[in-house]
């Protein structure tokens, strides 16, 4: 049988794949957002902007220094993560203890600065970034064609999520993080340098976003607005999935990506709004989110 609901199987499979790829970006971003929110109680609006900075970082390395994809994949997250950590240490830290609104506002301001800055430097139109040699081409699977790069993105993103999960749930460092999230003051009294831990966490969360940016560079057009369009969707995902759960964020992100892809097949105009409709539904039926275990209503 080669058709489902009147659509050829290859089309559906293709869109499922594309949706999965998008879902992977959503997953890495929502993971970073969830971790930062869980530990620092900051809604990091700038997450999308750092994603964009990661993509631009890869592009700039390629354009101005001739540095290739594989090096960028390692170097750019480290650099951007360091910038993020510096931002936390110098500015964000001062808002600790205040209403989380201030953190949202400060990071919103940062988005304007980053987006405006990049637009000034490179203009609004997208810059192309080549797919690395070793990942070009595609594999014929019979029911669909699988571009190798997209398969790589899925593998890399999921590995990233798995690694993060393992780090947080199964290592002593992760134990310190979880402890600091649950009881910050007590954890500090044991001699654990919690402020440093928070800075590092923010830096790593940002590095994750930048990593996703490098992954995205060959697929999306590298342009200053690429982050904000994504971050609002990620916000919706996090509302749907529930803020308290890392696992919930990842699963929801992947599912949303696929659902978005399917919507594009059958009713393409709605594809950009379907996630918000879903969010509205979840809010009506299950306000805590699908996997939510966060206390604050």
């Amino acid at each position, binding site marked *: 049988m080669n058709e489902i609901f009147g659509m050829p199987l290859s089309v559906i499979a293709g869109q499922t794949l594309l949706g999965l790829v998008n879902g992977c970006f959503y997953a890495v971003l929502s993971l970073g957002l969830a971790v930062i929110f869980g530990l620092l109680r900051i809604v990091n609006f700038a997450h999308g902007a750092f994603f964009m900075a990661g993509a631009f970082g890869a592009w700039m390395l390629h354009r101005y220094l001739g540095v290739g994809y594989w090096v960028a994949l390692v170097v750019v997250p480290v650099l951007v993560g360091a910038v993020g950590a510096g931002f936390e240490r110098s500015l964000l830290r001062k808002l600790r203890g205040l209403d989380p609104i201030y953190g949202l506002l400060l990071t919103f301001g940062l988005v304007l600065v980053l987006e405006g800055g990049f637009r000034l430097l490179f203009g609004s139109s997208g810059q192309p970034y080549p797919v690395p040699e070793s990942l070009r081409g595609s594999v014929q699977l019979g029911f669909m064609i699988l571009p190798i790069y997209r398969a790589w993105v899925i593998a890399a993103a999921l590995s990233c999520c798995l690694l993060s999960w393992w780090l947080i749930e199964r290592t002593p460092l992760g134990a310190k993080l979880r402890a600091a999230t*649950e009881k910050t003051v007590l954890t500090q*009294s044991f001699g*654990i340098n919690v402020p440093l831990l928070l800075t590092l966490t923010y830096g790593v969360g940002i590095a994750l976003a930048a990593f996703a940016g490098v992954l995205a560079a060959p697929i999306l057009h590298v342009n200053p607005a690429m982050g904000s369009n994504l971050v609002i969707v990620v916000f919706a995902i996090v509302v749907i999935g529930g803020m308290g759960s890392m696992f919930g964020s990842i699963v929801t992100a992947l599912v949303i990506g696929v659902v978005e892809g399917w919507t594009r097949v059958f009713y393409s105009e709605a594809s950009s709004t379907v996630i918000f409709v879903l969010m509205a539904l979840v809010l009506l039926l299950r306000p805590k989110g699908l996997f939510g275990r966060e206390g604050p209503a």
Partner: protein
Amino acid sequence: MSEALLVIRDLCAWYGPSQALHGIDLEVRSGEIVTLLGRNGAGKSTLLKCVMGIVSQRTGSIRLAGRDLLGLAPHEVGRAGVGYCPDDRGIYASLSVRENLLLPPVVAGGGMSEAELMALFPNLKARAKSAGTQLSGGEQQMLAIARILRTGARLLLLDEPTEGLAPVLVERIGEVLVDLRRRGYTIVLVEQNVHFAAELADRHYLIESGRVAGCFDSAALAADFNRVAARLGV
């Protein structure tokens, strides 16, 4: 007479605009067990929190082996060799029992090893993989004490360790504390249970309304027991 390990002079503390401690003078000698007795709200827990830096609005002086604690950042007090057991035990729900035990970093040599602690508290070994808060109250108390014994801290601050525990467990904790004193630990104990305190400790401070209302050794406490107990509302 051993030298003073913890010296507190004229300690005043505030929670926001309200003052909780009004000029506390206190001394704990090395190897002693000292109890802070007093009614609810007298300021005993606040005193411990001031030493740990958890209460930040403080004036006066707190010295550990001559070293000023007031100027330290909150995470440096633990590193200076002070172990703290809060009155709600402070066991983490998001950590397993073993992770709870291993969380506080080792700050000095001489702390007990994981194996020694599992031997001292066998219940913990059996439940090592459960979430911290799945333990019973008594087990959580044991865990809270055990984890600071691993760090090498020589001054232990315990806030109401026997609260809400069955007599059998209270006795067990008493045994542990006596054993610790034998090993050379210095312990400051906040207690409502006067009997427990009387049997165990070397000296007692009576705290009332944020001030030191009296200081006596065990003999003096025994002699005047009923009057002291009355003041505590027991």
